């Protein structure tokens, strides 16, 4: 038996990092349950929602809650929590060391530099435009590359500064539409705006979120799955509105 308070804090932190960085509900519950079992509390009750986590230990009559406000995608953190939990299960590290390492994961993980992210946004936009539509004239390719990079840069920048939800998607999509519109005028209509836009919005659209919503619902999380779907629908609305504002001009 280990210190119950430390165990609950560590378990909640591990669950929170997973949930805030894109893991499904079932994975979060599974990881938290494993940590509690390995610490000597196999009867621990773990209750995970999209917006908050609860753990309670019946044997010592204690429970704790943690609210989750921000959700994003950072799979490096998911991997590190997974590695740490595996090392804890193998008794390579003890609970205090596990707790310290987790706090470190939340503050500092390796990230890609901004230049890499912009190049990645460019590649995603251009390759998917060609893969989906087959249009690959030089003007389509360059417009799509510029629009994809500008849109993602705006999305990323606004997320960094303000954390105002859905505004970043809206502004990113609006700029994509604007770049396409300017290019449409400059080239006197010799390009495929629909193809360019569908490529350039790919770094922003909530496709993974929609799929995860269905997967969460199918594993029996009847509250968290639909909640995730609402989040995805709102960001699809922000993007659709941003594009629609510029698309009325052609």
């Amino acid at each position: 038996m280990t210190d119950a308070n430390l165990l609950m804090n560590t378990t909640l932190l591990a669950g929170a990092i997973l949930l805030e960085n894109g893991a499904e509900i079932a994975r979060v519950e599974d990881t938290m349950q494993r940590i509690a079992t390995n610490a000597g509390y196999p009867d621990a009750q773990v209750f995970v929602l999209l917006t908050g986590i609860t753990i309670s230990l019946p044997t010592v009559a204690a429970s704790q809650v943690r609210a989750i406000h921000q959700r994003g995608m950072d799979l490096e953190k998911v991997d590190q929590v997974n590695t740490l939990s595996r090392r804890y299960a193998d008794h390579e590290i003890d609970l205090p060391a596990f707790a310290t390492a987790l706090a470190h994961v939340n503050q500092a993980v390796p990230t890609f530099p901004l230049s890499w992210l912009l190049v990645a946004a460019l590649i995603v936009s251009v390759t998917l435009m060609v893969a989906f539509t087959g249009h690959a004239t030089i003007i389509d390719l360059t417009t799509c590359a510029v629009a994809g990079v500008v849109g993602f840069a705006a999305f990323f920048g606004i997320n960094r500064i303000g954390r105002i939800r859905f505004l970043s998607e809206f502004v990113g999509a609006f700029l994509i539409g604007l770049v396409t519109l300017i290019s449409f005028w400059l080239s006197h209509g010799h390009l495929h705006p629909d193809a360019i836009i569908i490529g350039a919005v790919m770094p922003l659209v909530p496709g993974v979120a929609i799929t995860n919503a269905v997967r969460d619902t199918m594993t029996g999380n009847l509250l968290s799955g639909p909640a995730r779907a609402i989040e995805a629908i709102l960001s699809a609305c922000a993007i659709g509105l941003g594009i629609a504002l510029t698309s009325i001009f052609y």
Partner: protein
Amino acid sequence: MLHWLFTIGLLQTILAYLATAAFGVLLNIPRRALNLSGWVGAAGWLTYEALYQLLPTTIDIKLAIGNLVAAVVIGVFSGLAAHYKRMPMIIFNIPSLVPLVPGGQSYRVVRNLVTGHPAIANQYLAQVVIIAGVIAIGFLLAEFINRLLWQLSHS
């Protein structure tokens, strides 16, 4: 079919590899997983494209069957990759989904609703529901296959 495989099929595979690896960078997956997740994504997209060429049916059924099989392929390959690299599966299957997921369709639903084309919006909405549902079922099937493979390799 063979001709298709060595021309458009090859091109689509390379495009999907690049798109998946680049999307992996956007999701900040560990660097040592980038290459492998790119290949998982390429395998999934090639499966989808090949089925799309072969199936002699309407577009909705093509979407459903193509995405279902592609999701199974991605799920199984992600499971193998995760086992090989000792990393969680989510690192391989989330970036690999990028060419398949109904992100583009979901934005088109809203765009067509706003610009006054509800009929087109309805079509895309149906596609979003079909694709998202079918990918989820495909992942369930893949999980089942992964467990079978696991039991076979340990008996």
